[in-house]
């Protein structure tokens, strides 16, 4: 079972091309930041799960962080007898204030 986090900012289509480029840079930066944050938080035995985190841009304003390793969800959310070791969730939460601040800065500068 794989997990993924999709990062979107829905009001951006109204913005100018220049703002859109800046917003895209922010989405890209934060998408990779979340991937790195998830990897750092990963339990390591073989390194398979830690190395399984991927970041990609689905479009200029949509980034995707995912991990296709079959057991990653059991670590992220826990099982009946293993406590969760959250990776993607805290990485996304940690990135959220910076993401929102950067987007606000772009909007304020318009």
């Amino acid at each position, binding site marked *: 079972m794989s997990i993924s986090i999709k990062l979107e900012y829905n009001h951006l289509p109204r913005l100018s091309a220049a703002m859109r480029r800046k917003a895209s840079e922010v989405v890209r930066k934060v998408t990779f930041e979340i991937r790195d944050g998830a990897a750092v938080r990963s339990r390591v035995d073989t390194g398979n799960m830690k190395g399984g985190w991927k970041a990609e841009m689905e479009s200029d304003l949509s980034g995707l962080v995912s991990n296709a390793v079959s057991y990653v969800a059991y670590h992220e959310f826990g099982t*009946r007898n293993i*406590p*969760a070791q959250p990776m993607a969730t805290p990485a996304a*939460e940690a990135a959220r204030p910076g993401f929102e601040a950067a987007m606000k800065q772009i909007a304020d500068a318009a």
Partner: protein
Amino acid sequence: MSELAAGAKWIYGVLTTDATLQGYIGATARVYDTLAPENATMPFVTFQYQGGYDVRTNGPARIWASTVWLVKAIGTGSTFATLQTIAGRVDALLTGKYGSNTAGQVWCVREQPFQLLEVDAGVQYRHVGGLYRLWIREA
């Protein structure tokens, strides 16, 4: 750091004092912080902090902590039906609610439903619940 204590205390308190939920998971309140004891009777409910961040003023002072918690019912069986009933009651007790205790004040909404199937030695263990956003201000 008392925000996380306030959050855990509030969730536990709400879920262990509801007669309807006790009807589903037992009067001894099988609600566990992070991990159930080995061989705990199923179904039971667990909750765990998943992540969060501090919301600040312009200076270093914290206004509150914005936190995410996974709250879920876990049990065996070939369908999610029974657990969905439990998770529904948990959601009714938490979503849109406000509470306070000695550690702080808590506001709660559900951000995402949650469902997971775990198979171990041929036995299906099902998890149903939600990811809950708790805004917590320490006392």
